[in-house]
């Protein structure tokens, strides 16, 4: 039985194996991903991002439990940073989710970023597809703890939640330009702590300043995740956003952009491989590099020369 067949019949080990292959040798996963692809497109993909320690894992845990009470199945991808020096990582998001470990309706996978800088792992996209094909109703993707500009999550999630907590001082100001712009839903977690109301107020004021005509205004929802407070309302906010995406046609738009980007990424990678094979066969690259070093040629003319055989008339 292939891994794809195993996944479609509910085999957990096959599911876990294929995600490993996608992480380590993505080209080898292609035949299975091709089989799985027609079975995707059903899951609602929810991204959750925010600063380290803002309660992302705990929120995912509570949201998943709420969904399980509603008899929905849940896949979770939790990303933590990989050391740029050793390649090692401590993947610790599961600590908050271990009640779910033995639930047959939940699959949790931890991933290291392995060099990706946008807050996600490169393999996260394929892992979502695999969980979708495995029949998960919801797929949560938890990013690394982010600062300002790690916004890759918006490219793979249908709905993006941004979590904030009181006590980060002018954190709001500092992350305003990047991460705050991608929120479909704001979560002010640890709302029992002093300053939570101000954080919510500042967010509302920031949203008031949005001058561009936007049909969706992200709700600002307060939670105390470890006590389970505000979880049902948060889920409702997510569902309202999904309904909006559906009715406004934006879901189609978002997914179109996503698939276009995915196809282009695959094409670019293939193209680069082919070009490198072509040029190294000719010994061409080394020759022009030497000429550029010797100042006989500039880098721009060198590139033009390399591309000469492919010029389109």
């Amino acid at each position, binding site marked *: 039985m292939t891994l794809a067949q195993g996944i479609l019949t509910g085999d*957990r*080990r096959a599911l*876990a194996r294929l995600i490993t292959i996608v992480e380590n040798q993505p080209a080898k996963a292609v035949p299975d991903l091709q089989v799985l692809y027609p079975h995707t497109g059903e899951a609602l993909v929810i991204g959750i991002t925010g600063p380290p320690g803002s309660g992302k894992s705990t929120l995912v845990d509570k949201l998943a439990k709420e969904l399980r009470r509603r008899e929905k199945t849940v896949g979770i991808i939790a990303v933590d940073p990989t*050391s740029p020096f050793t390649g090692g990582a*401590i*993947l*610790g998001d*599961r600590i908050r989710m*271990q009640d779910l*470990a033995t639930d047959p309706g939940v699959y949790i996978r931890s991933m290291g970023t392995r060099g990706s800088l946008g807050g996600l792992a490169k393999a996260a996209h394929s892992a979502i597809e695999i969980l979708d094909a495995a029949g998960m109703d919801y797929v949560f993707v938890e990013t690394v703890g982010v600062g300002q500009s790690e916004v890759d999550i918006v490219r793979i999630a249908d709905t993006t939640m941004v979590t904030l907590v009181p006590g980060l001082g002018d954190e709001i100001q500092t992350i305003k330009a990047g991460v705050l712009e991608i929120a479909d839903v704001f979560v002010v977690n640890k709302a029992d702590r002093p300053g939570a109301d101000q954080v919510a107020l500042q967010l509302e004021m920031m949203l008031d300043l949005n001058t561009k005509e936007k049909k969706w205004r992200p709700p600002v929802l307060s939670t105390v995740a470890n006590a389970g407070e505000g979880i049902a309302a948060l889920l409702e906010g997510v569902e309202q956003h999904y309904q909006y995406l559906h009715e406004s046609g934006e879901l189609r738009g978002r997914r179109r952009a996503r698939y276009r980007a995915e196809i282009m990424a695959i094409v670019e990678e293939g193209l680069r491989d082919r070009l490198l094979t072509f040029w190294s066969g000719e010994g061409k690259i080394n020759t022009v590099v030497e000429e550029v070093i010797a100042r006989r040629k500039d880098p721009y003319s060198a590139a033009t020369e390399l591309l000469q055989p492919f010029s389109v008339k």
Partner: protein
Amino acid sequence: MRERPIRVLIAKPGLDGHDRGAKIMARALRDAGMEVIYTGLRQTPEQIVETGIQEDVDVIGMSILSGAHTHLFPKVMQLLKDKEAGDILVIGGGIIPDEDIPALKKAGIAAIFTPGTLTETVIDFIKDRVPR
């Protein structure tokens, strides 16, 4: 160089709350280039085995200081076998009397590391035993 990082689950089964050893090992394995899934205290054998499968780990490392190793370690081995995941390398550590070790090894635990073990010893053991 390996073409992939080794994935290790570090788990603390049972009820004791002494996780310093587990945390030091997690950190040492991280610094050795491994991906360490850390699940924290009070894990049941069922949780450990299911986590190991979902995370597709090469190694499960368990730490016990409560004296329950003779019960909990073999239980994990049995569950792994039941789930057809007997290929995962399992190692243990903690306060474990010498006379208990042969039985644990017989149950399938690949190695038991007791207090005083150098982290390098564990790292070398894992690198040696996990197929490339």
